[in-house]
């Protein structure tokens, strides 16, 4: 029986586990408590890296979609679809933690600030991408349409970004441009959390891909019979 290479998911899994065991120390002990926002500010250490993971996932989906249309390699479609799915998971987390953060800081669960709106729209596109799969029967056509949507959807990101920024800007400018305002201890904790979430993202992605490949193998074996 052919064994699939377990090394990459394993490496990223271990890396994620190591990071996960250090991250709480940095977040809760090493980094100070922000004066105005209190402990709610700590949500930021996982909220923003989740958002980064989400964008990374959408970007990977975009790249793999282009490669699929170019090379017609089934694996590219598989990677694109898996990236989108993991990205959707992180997007959901961004939205939920965003709401939990907004409640104590701004007094409402949802305030339509530019960045969260961007996340919400991207989340909608990812969800539509996910639903596309179930609507088309022919697997090859489904893969092609997915790739088209993956490209079209990602191209939308700069437009959403610009539009929501013009429309409304409420977000505290901690991440964009004025990172200097973040004290060094918080900055350190934040960057470590970004690495942690990227490791987590890849660990989940590899896991998801190995599931998709197993399913693919099962299906081809079934049609052979």
């Amino acid at each position, binding site marked *: 029986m052919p064994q699939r290479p377990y090394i990459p998911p394993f490496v990223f899994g271990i890396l994620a586990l190591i990071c996960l065991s250090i991250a709480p120390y940095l977040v809760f002990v090493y980094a100070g408590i922000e004066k105005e926002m209190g402990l709610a500010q700590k949500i930021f250490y996982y909220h923003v890296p989740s958002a980064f993971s989400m964008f990374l996932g959408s970007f990977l989906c975009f790249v793999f979609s282009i490669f699929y*249309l170019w090379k017609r390699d089934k694996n590219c479609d598989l990677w694109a679809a898996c990236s989108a799915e993991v990205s959707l998971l992180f997007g959901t987390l961004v939205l939920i933690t965003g709401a939990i953060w907004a409640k104590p800081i701004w007094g409402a669960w949802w305030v339509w600030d530019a960045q969260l709106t961007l996340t919400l*729209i991207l989340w*909608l*596109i990812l969800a*539509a991408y996910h*639903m*596309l799969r179930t*609507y*088309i*029967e*022919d697997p090859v*056509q489904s893969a*092609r*349409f997915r*790739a*088209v*949507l993956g*490209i*079209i*959807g990602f*191209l*939308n990101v700069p*437009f*959403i970004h*610009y*539009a*929501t920024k*013009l*429309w409304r800007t409420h977000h505290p400018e901690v991440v964009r441009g004025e990172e200097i305002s973040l004290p060094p201890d918080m900055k350190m904790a934040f960057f470590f959390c970004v690495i942690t979430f990227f490791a987590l993202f890849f660990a989940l992605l590899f896991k998801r891909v190995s599931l998709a490949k197993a399913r693919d193998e099962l299906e081809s074996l079934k049609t052979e019979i």
Partner: protein
Amino acid sequence: MPLFFTQTLAILHKDLKTEWRTRERLSAMAFFALLVVIIFNFIYEPGSPIIKTVAPGIFWIATAFAGLLGLSRSYAIETQNDCLMGLRLTPVDPGAIFLGKMLGNTLTMLILQVLILPILVIFLNLQIAEALPRLILPILLGTLGFAAIGTLFSAMSLNTRLREAFLPLLTLPIFIPALLAAIESFRAVLTGAEITDWLVLSGAFVALYIAACLLLFEYVLED
């Protein structure tokens, strides 16, 4: 004239002609848009001043939803006798099919908007007479952007189950930034505010998406 443009114009000409002969699509769209405009009035108290600030939104919601209705019909004539296959048997660039269809959809929607705008003005008691010339560009750009992604996705939805549900599902999330620009610039024209930023946004949206769809349409048609 290069073959590409001859073909584009042939498709546009053919679509408009069939559309004009039957008029079923446009009348359904217009009626639907009218319904949306009227129903929106019941959300607010009669004579509420809010209605004027949301008028641009009502206009765009009405035309975008009616547009979706029309888009799902725009490929119906191609599937009827397998015409799409006949079309693909000719030495045609998929981009020409896209462009012809997109321009046809844009024109249909513009006609619809010309019909809806007076109704909106009457029902909501708007004063737009002098702002009208400045409204043309933002509306045109918004419509082009909508028609571009709508035409791509309606070709996609041909081969899916739940065809009608599928089209808005894909089109609307992608259209949001352009919709936002269209509504905001409409509102800015009414209040006399600056609209350059919004026009740049819609212009870039139209340019990028028409280019992307021209390239990607090939993959939607192929099988």
